[in-house]
């Protein structure tokens, strides 16, 4: 009680604008803090983008040079190229072409007035900073595109992704329909087992599965990356089932009275109402297939012509390391599509995550 009175009296005692100002200040401070945090969080993207468009020479020339992609400005005089540097004079810094290098004094030419007498400046030329000019090398992306053979990687990834989407939709819709609408004996236990597979470490089933696929000749093909998706997985079944449970049963029953069988009801009653969740699962799986690294790594080892984008980028950078600009260019090209899909359908993604995460 005492505290309550204190709260009330303090709001009365201080003028209303002070209270407002305090609220505004807290809000501004908090927002500023969040902005700093999110900037730090996303800074690596800036690093990657700026490095991807740097010239290789700039990267190898100096480790601590500009973080921006720059060129040294040159000036051509009588057929030869000279570096343009910043030369300090008493009346200010001038940008001059370094003509004759000397330890005690150097001679310069003014690019603005090359016919004038060369300028002599006392001091070591080594202390002079070069003049740099912003020079993004957009061509790096084209080089990376060709060297990694992106069209091939994208084609492989899309085939694996699209067939996987078809498989996961067919199977998960069917299984979710079973869980949402049919009186199956032991349904609760079966559903718990399904959810339990989420926390089963896949390593323990992977060795025999790999062995099996190896014996039937599927290792080194796309099949192990596609076929298992035709047998449903816990996350997507859960997501679709939750959606099906929200659909009213009246329409099912009306269709049943009209003589429609379970297949008919699924196709013409349930699915037409469920496009949001179907699109969500399709997007989830596309991003999953695009980002999946481990499965293609083990099943497509030594088959570069079949590898999807994730493994392709890694293999390329493994073989042709020490090209930081190309590494960053390939990294960005690899993340472009999933990030784009995410921004276009962010609500779908975040809702899906919340449903599978919180309700379970």
């Amino acid at each position, binding site marked *: 009680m005492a505290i309550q009175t204190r709260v009330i009296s303090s709001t009365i005692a201080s003028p209303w604008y002070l209270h407002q100002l305090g609220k505004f200040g807290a809000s501004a401070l908090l*927002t500023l803090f969040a902005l700093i945090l999110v900037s730090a969080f996303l800074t*690596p993207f800036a690093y990657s983008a700026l490095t991807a468009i740097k010239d290789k020479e700039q990267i190898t020339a100096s480790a601590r040079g500009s973080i921006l992609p720059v060129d040294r400005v040159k000036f051509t005089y009588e057929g030869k190229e000279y570096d343009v540097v910043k030369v300090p004079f008493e009346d200010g810094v001038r940008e001059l072409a370094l003509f004759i290098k000397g330890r005690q004094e150097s001679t310069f030419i003014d690019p603005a007035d090359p016919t004038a007498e060369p300028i002599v400046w006392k001091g070591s030329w080594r202390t002079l900073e070069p003049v740099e000019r912003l020079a993004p090398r957009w061509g790096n992306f084209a080089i990376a595109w060709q060297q990694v053979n992106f069209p091939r990687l994208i084609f492989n990834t899309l085939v694996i992704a699209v067939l996987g989407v078809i498989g996961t939709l067919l199977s998960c819709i069917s299984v979710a329909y079973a869980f949402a*609408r049919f009186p199956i004996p032991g349904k609760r236990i079966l559903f718990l087992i399904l959810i339990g597979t989420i926390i089963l*470490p896949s390593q323990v089933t992977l060795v025999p599965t790999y062995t099996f696929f190896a014996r039937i000749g599927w290792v080194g093909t796309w099949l192990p990356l596609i076929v298992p998706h035709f047998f449903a997985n816990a996350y997507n079944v859960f997501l679709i089932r939750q959606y099906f449970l929200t659909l009213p049963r009246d329409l099912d029953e009306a269709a049943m009275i009209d003589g429609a069988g379970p297949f008919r009801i699924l196709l013409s009653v349930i699915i037409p109402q469920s496009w949001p969740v179907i699109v969500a699962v399709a997007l989830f799986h596309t991003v999953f297939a695009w980002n999946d*690294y481990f499965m293609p790594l083990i099943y497509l080892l030594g088959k570069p012509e079949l590898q999807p984008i994730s493994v392709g980028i890694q293999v390329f950078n493994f073989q042709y390391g020490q090209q930081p600009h190309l590494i*960053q260019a390939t990294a960005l090209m*690899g993340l472009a599509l999933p990030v784009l899909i995410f921004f276009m359908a962010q609500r779908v993604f975040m809702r899906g995550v*919340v449903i599978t995460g919180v309700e379970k």
Partner: protein
Amino acid sequence: MSLKRIQQIWGFIFLSPWIIGFLAFTLFPLAASLILSFTDYNLNRADEIHWLGFANYMKIFTDPLVGISLAATFKFALIALPLSIILPVGLAALLNAKQLKGKRILRTLFYMPYMVPVVSSVYIWQGMLNTETGWINRFLGLLGIAGPNWLNDIVWIYPALNIIGIWGIGNAFLITLAAMQGVPTELYEAATVDGAGPWGRFRNVTLPMISPVIFYNLVLSVIGLFRYFEIPYILSQGTGRPGNAQMFFNLHLYKTAFVFKEMGYGSALAWLLFAMAFIATLALFVSSRRWVYYASGDGF
């Protein structure tokens, strides 16, 4: 046949993809790997297979890489597990604050790196963490601090891996935030009337109410710890460098089974991993009775 019976049969028909898949890709392989773990099966000489009894499991005790890889996993976990609770909760609390402006866009931006393929994120962070050219050490340099050799030092590699891991915070953060938003406002009002300040409300209302989600995230993190593979594999180009500091348990398992094709010993390692993950999860479930609060009265 009664209508109910017909409906049951239809139910099993629609369920069949999962039942077949569960048998073919979970139950059967589980049994097969247990059997394989008692043999010397090697895919490079697939025609001969001998029963070894417990020899593979005895080998676990003499294989130096088992101890090394478990130590690596443990050292990593020492930072990773606390972070996997504190970061999502802290970030969600920030984004749940009433005074914060631009929540929507911030939420999207904090989640977004979760969408980045692990290969891309490893290469981006590898550049960021480079001793000379990386922005982290250059930033530290501006402050007059000589940054460490993050990726080639057997101690600093663990903080480095955790820094890379921060980009994977998206899912845990988002479901924690959703849980926080689901806490009924009456509870906060009641706590305020009882004299609780902001910290008291967070400690005594928010944390208990979101404890199921913290628990869920913790279980996934612990299992993720045993499965940790892709980032150290790409970063060390499959070698586990520096030293064997990145030779995580799962990398050792991968090399045994899929590089050297020793499926027998690989299966024994896989069962060890399974057993450890199972015990850890079980311990979490047992402990959860003491600290996880279910408003509805039943667990998941």
